[in-house]
């Protein structure tokens, strides 16, 4: 599943709460939500993965998000060429004898071992969610102690800013808010 919305929001207290609360009360499901600073000071970019497959329903989510005063823009990147990545830390039960075996698998997945103790090690992996699922699957027989996944982050390919790309399309369609005017 890769239904993903990317939101640009004002970096203000409670914004994440407003977004999460909106998903809850409108009965939309969040698969993962990741927030962090954007390229513009005072704003954050949030990647929201949802299981809503229907485009029109996702558009309603998008417009509801846009209604939040602190949300500057929301792009549905589901049907766009984009890079989607996730990171995971996977703690595997592994003593001396099988460390080498785990190490080989980790190399195939271009992951890294970032911590070793006598009975376990921690694998760090970055990639498409499918790849992480697959690595977890092959590590499971060794005994997976703990998994921590970050959730998806997404970015549209090419030299466009996610928000600007949307602006161009919106401008062409004349739908939604008129950013060119608003930005002066």
């Amino acid at each position, binding site marked *: 599943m890769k239904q993903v919305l990317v939101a640009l929001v004002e970096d203000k207290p409670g914004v994440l709460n407003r977004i999460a*609360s909106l998903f809850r009360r409108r009965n939309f499901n969040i698969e993962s939500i990741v927030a962090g600073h954007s390229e513009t000071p005072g704003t954050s970019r949030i990647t929201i993965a949802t299981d809503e497959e229907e485009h029109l329903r996702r558009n309603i989510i998008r417009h509801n998000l846009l209604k*939040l005063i602190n949300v500057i823009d929301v792009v549905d990147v589901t049907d766009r060429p984009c890079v989607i990545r996730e990171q995971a830390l996977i703690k595997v039960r592994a003593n001396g004898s099988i460390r080498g075996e785990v190490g080989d698998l980790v190399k195939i997945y271009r992951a890294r071992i970032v911590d070793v103790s006598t009975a376990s090690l921690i694998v760090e992996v970055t990639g498409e969610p499918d790849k992480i699922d697959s690595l977890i699957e092959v590590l499971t027989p060794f005994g997976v102690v703990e998994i921590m996944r970050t959730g998806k982050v997404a970015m549209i390919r090419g030299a466009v800013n996610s928000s600007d790309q949307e602006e161009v399309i919106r401008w062409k369609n004349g739908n939604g*808010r008129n950013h060119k005017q608003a930005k002066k």
Partner: protein
Amino acid sequence: MANSKRMLKGAEIVWECLVREGVETVFGYPGGAILPVYDALANYSDRIHHVLVRHEQGAAHMADGYSRASGKVGVAMATSGPGAVNLITGMATAMMDSSPMVCITGQVPTNVLGSDAFQETDITGATLPVTKHSYLVMEVDSLANVIREAFYIARTGRPGPVLIDIPKDVQNDVTEFEYPTDPIDLPGYHPPEKATDEEVAAVLELINGADRPLVLSGHGVLMSGARDALIAIIEKADIPVTTTLLGNDSLPHSHPLNLGMMGMHGNASANHAIQGADLIIACGMRFDDRVTGKLKTYSPNSRKIHIDIDASELNKNVRVDVAINADLATVLAQIKPGVKQRKRAEWLKTIQAWQEDATQRDVLQLESETLLGAQVIRSICENIPDDALIVTDVGQHQMLEAQYYSHEQPHTLITSGGLGTMGFGFPAAIGASFHRADREIWAIVGDGGFQMTLQELGTAVQEQANVKIAIINNGYLGMVRQWQQMFYNAHYAETPISSPDYMKLAEAYGVPGYRVDRREDIEPTLKGARRHKGPVLIEFVVEQHEMVYPMVPAGADLHKMIRRPHPEETSV
């Protein structure tokens, strides 16, 4: 002087900013955490009138009623904790009906915030789903700008309630006050304006090509000031109109193209017109379940145009062919020149046949021994001026008002539509009376809803609010009883409700009181009541088992209405 820098307390800044926003009336109730603001009121009481309510819910409904009557932002004020929580019903009501309102609440001091301090409630958290936006003001320096933003957000775009929560220490903190004059900077908030040329062209193609077009006129027609433009278009193109409950006064009732209200208790002819139309032009309405009935069978053979200021309403309930997110008045002005003059006699004749069928079962023609709510409401309509304001509560009387009161002028009806808040009507009428003291205002309420907020009689008397209260007393929670009769085997669980002796209640509050239980007494009593300035209470004792017809059961096909049985078949 006006813009010179002064050292002011946060509490004074609140009033300074309200004055600059043009606020003349504030509805509120003091308490511990808002005391500094109330202490500062004395210096501003020559410019702002504070109305002391009897319960904070009343303050919120009054601010809402004031806002709907005046078109200005209504202001309610309360203390922290219980005071703030009591505002929530009013905020939710205003949110659903897009009523611009600013609620100001006191909060516990910032140093104990989050510690479950006395009378602490996370009110910004609690109100998240029922406010358009909210602020918790953590430092006094941001206060003036927050208030300015709050008013701007409340009244623009799709209007709604905005909450400002101010901790007590922020009210006491002193800062250099200068009213901000720079443009409001909200990077994520840009209300839409007009339609694109492509959208206009698409709309015109559909309208000019339609044989059976129908306009659905909602609250947005009134709120965006699009009424005249809409009338011009429908007259030019001979397009009939049906209205929502909140759009009931968006077109003169006597207008030949007005089919009246649609939906669950709408006119049968209007619902048939929706189902039979080949083009629906939805203006400033949101396809609420109470107007659509079952979505699968809703207006099955029509193309649909939807114009709304709120993008999230487009394609939400009903999928449409052309969705325009813009200000309605602007869009109508854009399309008006391109709408072709045309007669649609055949379509109107079809509708007329449906209308004639409906009039046969008009309850006003019925002989009855007891008084009927519909007769009372019709009489009120016939006896008061066109510009009088009607404020209704929620239930059977509300639907009867919508059916039997003819609104000729815009902004003559205030009612709780989306949330259906019982207890709304009376306080909202009091609030509305502060817009224009000389205006005739009638609160038409049921005995159930009135008892929810009748303590506001105290406010009405203290302020000598010019509100005439018409209680349609049937001794039941009538609409709930109607559902029980129709869908729960007439099992009247907890719907019979007693009332106090309303004449004694009126006497206790020092208000003229009348009781009417015969048809011939309605008119003389109305005439008598109208001679009094200030609050008057009239109890109309009506038939207990009256039903509101027609009715589309919830979730049923819109054209499958339960109709009033013919008089020969059964008595009322």
